């Protein structure tokens, strides 16, 4: 970046002149901004410490092999978390498989293809969709989607992982569309113009130029969407049937499954403070925390590497 030396000096003199009476306020504001900035880190650390404190006794009370056994039935002291882990994974993966392609396609359509008037109508509409409370989606799921799923797919019950995945995808899509569309929107027009001028078709421009240029934003969108899906509780508790069976094989998506979040929500209310069951629920919470941390760290690592590569290419 170039700086006009004349402008620079003028700016400097203004600050020195004004700094005498603005200083106390500025210091205060700076401190406030700093506190706000660090608070997120502090809160995450505090939550992590709390989770660790409540979850660690689990390892004294339940053996590791039992924690990963195949049966979850806490009132009779069966604490196998494998069904809950696989249940959460299947439902989240299912939701991601539906939401990511669909969300990205919607974002591309809104940002690149739709005419201006349609775009200004669609974007707010998608954001309204994101504001629907999850419990309302859960009701829709029980009353409308679950019977449909049962009849169309001819399966014994509609309260399955698939129903949950579809609803979770519905909740993740607005996040994905909104963030990805913003990212696509910031790609300079000159990129598209250059591609088209070189003879690329519209599809080639979108697929080879615009989307890769907005890559980091698109990846953030995907991660936020998946994050929303894995942490969602109310909807999955209402429509997935909550049966703690091990998900194995592709057919698992059409079975009733129990997620980690639903387990905590359903059982925490009546569990005695400090009991084995109580600690086991915190252990599940800790596992969820670590999973989402891993997802986020992986995403930032991928982003970081991608940015370094693009910087190398540009220099």
């Amino acid at each position: 970046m170039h700086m006009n030396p004349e402008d620079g000096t003028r700016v400097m003199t203004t600050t020195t002149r004004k700094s005498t009476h603005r200083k106390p306020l500025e210091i205060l504001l700076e401190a406030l901004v700093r506190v706000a900035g660090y608070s997120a880190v502090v809160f995450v650390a505090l939550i992590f410490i709390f989770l660790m404190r409540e979850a660690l006794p689990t390892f004294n009370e339940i053996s590791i092999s039992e924690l990963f056994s195949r049966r979850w039935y806490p009132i009779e002291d069966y604490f196998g978390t494998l069904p809950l882990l696989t249940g959460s994974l299947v439902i989240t993966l299912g939701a991601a498989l539906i939401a990511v392609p669909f969300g990205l396609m919607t974002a591309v359509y809104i940002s690149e293809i739709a005419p201006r008037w349609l775009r200004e109508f669609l974007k707010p509409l998608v954001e309204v969709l994101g504001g629907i409370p999850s419990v309302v989606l859960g009701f829709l799921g029980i009353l409308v989607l679950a019977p449909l799923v049962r009849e169309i797919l001819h399966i014994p019950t509609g309260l399955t992982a698939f129903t949950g995945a579809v609803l979770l995808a519905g909740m993740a899509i607005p996040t994905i569309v909104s963030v990805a569309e913003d990212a696509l929107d910031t790609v300079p027009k000159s990129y598209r113009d250059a591609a088209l001028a070189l003879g690329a078709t519209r599809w080639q421009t979108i697929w080879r130029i615009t989307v890769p240029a907005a890559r980091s934003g698109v990846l953030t969108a995907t991660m936020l969407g998946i994050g929303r899906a894995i942490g969602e509780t109310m909807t999955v508790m209402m429509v997935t049937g909550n049966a703690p069976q091990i998900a194995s094989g592709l057919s698992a998506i059409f079975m009733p499954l129990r997620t980690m979040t639903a387990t905590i929500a359903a059982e925490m209310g009546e569990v005695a403070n400090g009991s084995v069951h109580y600690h086991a629920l915190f252990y599940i919470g800790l596992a969820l925390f670590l999973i989402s941390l891993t997802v986020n760290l992986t995403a930032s690592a991928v982003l970081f590497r991608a940015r370094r590569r693009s910087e190398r290419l540009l220099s």
Partner: protein
Amino acid sequence: MYSPHMHSLNHCRHFVALTIATIILCACSSIQQQTKDEIPVIDNILTNKGSDTIVNLALAWAEAYHEVRPDVNISVTGGGSGTGIAAMINNTVDIANASRRMKDKEIANAKENGITPVEFVIASDGIAVIVHPDNPIDRLTMQQVADIFSGKINNWTEVGGEDRPIVRLSREVNSGTHVYFLEAVVRMGDKKDEALFSTSTLLLPSSEGITAEIAQNRNAIGYEGLGYVTDAVKTIALAVDDTRPYVSPTVETVMDSSYPVSRSLYMYTPGEPRGTTKDYLDWIFGPDAQAIVKSLGFVPLK
């Protein structure tokens, strides 16, 4: 209205607490009636806490009792049988509600705190096994129901029905009804039996969820308290074994003990009840309070 679905939501407890707060609001009235030869009672606010199954009944009683004795105010909260019993052990409530008996461990805990819990059976609750109205099955033996829920029977043909898979529905594990059904039906009252619900049993957070699924799914079977049964589902007549008569669940059959799956609902007090607590419990066993039991779909004492 307080609906059974809300049992699953934590904030429902605040809701209940709010409802109760309105009852207490009229507390300002001073002691107008003197209770016979006793010294004037000072502690005429009773606290009553526990089972979510009982909370509707306890609320209705508290309201009705306030009409009879305007000087007594009763605050009722839910939270679950375990919560109420824990509060009683810590001596923070006057009466604990429970849809199950206290466990030996809980009684031992109470005695350590110098409290001897006293048990009162206040009403009964029949538990109905329910299916879709179009399901041709209308009667089962207890053994068949146990085999269905433990996963030994997986198709309706095995109990004489249509060729359809069986979808089992249950309340969540923290429900007193779930625990009762496990002990009394799946294990058929055998304490040494270690049978569990099949892992494919759907655990739904509310009785309404169970009703909704059964009302639209011909494969489904479930159970719920008699007070929650609606016309959208069909109740199954049960027999202890196939030599005994099949009995449908109604308030009458639960009262005369011919229906095999019913449980008592309890109140516990820390030590022998005295003063206002005793008056209230005496009133609960009287005809007015027991009439309220029946109107809410529970089964009154004989």
